[in-house]
């Protein structure tokens, strides 16, 4: 079952993304106010969802599991690291697609409002996490410091989510995860957007899987290099 789901992950992801693009570009109607500019609705919110909640959330949960003694393992550290790397990509895509959408709708590429600024800060946090990992040579120390850092910076995620409610922002409020539970997207636009959410979420897990495999191979290569170096020293009689 697990093998089957692993094999199907890639094709299903591709299918859902293709469906999202087909529906979003050709089938769904234009918006009453934004016209065809609304078609970025099927890309930007799903990417932002993955950036904030799925990828950063995965990195944070894996970090918590690493710090908890019962579940501490190299696997959790690798998952946190790989998820954070993918998170950097999705945060960058969130800002880029948002900018592309903002220019014709708001009239500006960028605005220093609470939502956009806090999202940019999240991107800086993700990059700092990766820099922190490179700054530490000892694997245990690296894993522990990174895990603590990921958990501390995760506080920014609810700040980003509630920023449009707490402060006055140029960025509009939530369309799906609203405070009173209403949905502000209607008809075929809604379920196309939801297909996009699922498609991009699966894309994250697909990327995470391959990034994790690369990390395992890298760790094995390092371990092999250490074993070879020790064997060489023994042959030299030191």
């Amino acid at each position: 079952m697990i093998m089957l789901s692993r094999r199907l992950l890639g094709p299903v992801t591709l299918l859902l993304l293709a469906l999202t693009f087909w529906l979003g570009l050709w089938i769904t109607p234009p918006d009453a106010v934004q016209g065809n500019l609304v078609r970025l609705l099927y890309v930007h919110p799903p990417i932002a969802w993955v950036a904030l909640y799925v990828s950063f959330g995965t990195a944070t949960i894996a970090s918590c599991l690493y710090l908890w003694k019962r579940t501490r393992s190299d696997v959790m550290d690798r998952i946190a690291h790989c998820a954070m790397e993918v998170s950097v990509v999705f945060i960058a895509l969130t800002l880029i697609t948002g900018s592309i959408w903002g220019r014709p709708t708001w009239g500006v590429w960028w605005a220093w409002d609470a939502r956009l600024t806090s999202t940019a800060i999240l991107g800086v946090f993700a990059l700092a996490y990766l820099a922190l990992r490179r700054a530490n040579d000892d694997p245990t120390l690296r894993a522990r410091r990174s895990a603590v850092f990921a958990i501390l910076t995760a506080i920014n995620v609810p700040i980003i989510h509630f920023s449009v409610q707490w402060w006055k922002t140029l960025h509009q409020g939530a369309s799906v995860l609203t405070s009173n539970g209403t949905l502000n997207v209607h008809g075929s636009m809604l379920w196309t957007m939801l297909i996009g959410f699922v498609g991009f979420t699966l894309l994250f897990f697909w990327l995470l899987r391959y990034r994790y495999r690369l990390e395992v191979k890298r760790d094995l290569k390092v371990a092999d290099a250490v074993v070879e170096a020790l064997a060489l020293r023994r042959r030299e009689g030191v």
Partner: protein
Amino acid sequence: MADVEVESALTPVDPPASKSRSTWRSIGVIVVLIGVVVVLLSQGLLSSLNYFETVDQALGQRTSLGTKVIRLEGVVEPGTISRTNSGASFTLTGSGTHHVFVTAQGSPPQLFQANIPVVVVGHFVSTTSLSFAGTQIMVKHSSSYIAAHPNRVKAPNGTSR
């Protein structure tokens, strides 16, 4: 001589300073991070945690605002838009009772129209005037998405009219 050699081989050796080097590098990363975050916050949140003043708020603080550059938010009143050579003029309304006349430079954004919330960057013309000179118009569209012409009639063959 052999005893001395064995003794020096058994003498404890200080471990390499990798842990302290890692600590300094980590501190370096944190310092750079704090610097970048402070810069971002100074651009964004600290100077404009609330990105704009509504028409009602701006008129309530009229005396203290003076001719300071602010971002004014309101809804474009229908029938008041007039395109000029250098931009557009229109009236912004707040809760319905307060109005501000805006003269803005530059082309308004694509979505600019009546009954849409906008944020105008500019300043009141004088310390007592209710006219606002704008240098930039931004549209603050809502989070609702509705199909254009949802009651469009469909022909029997499925095409829309």
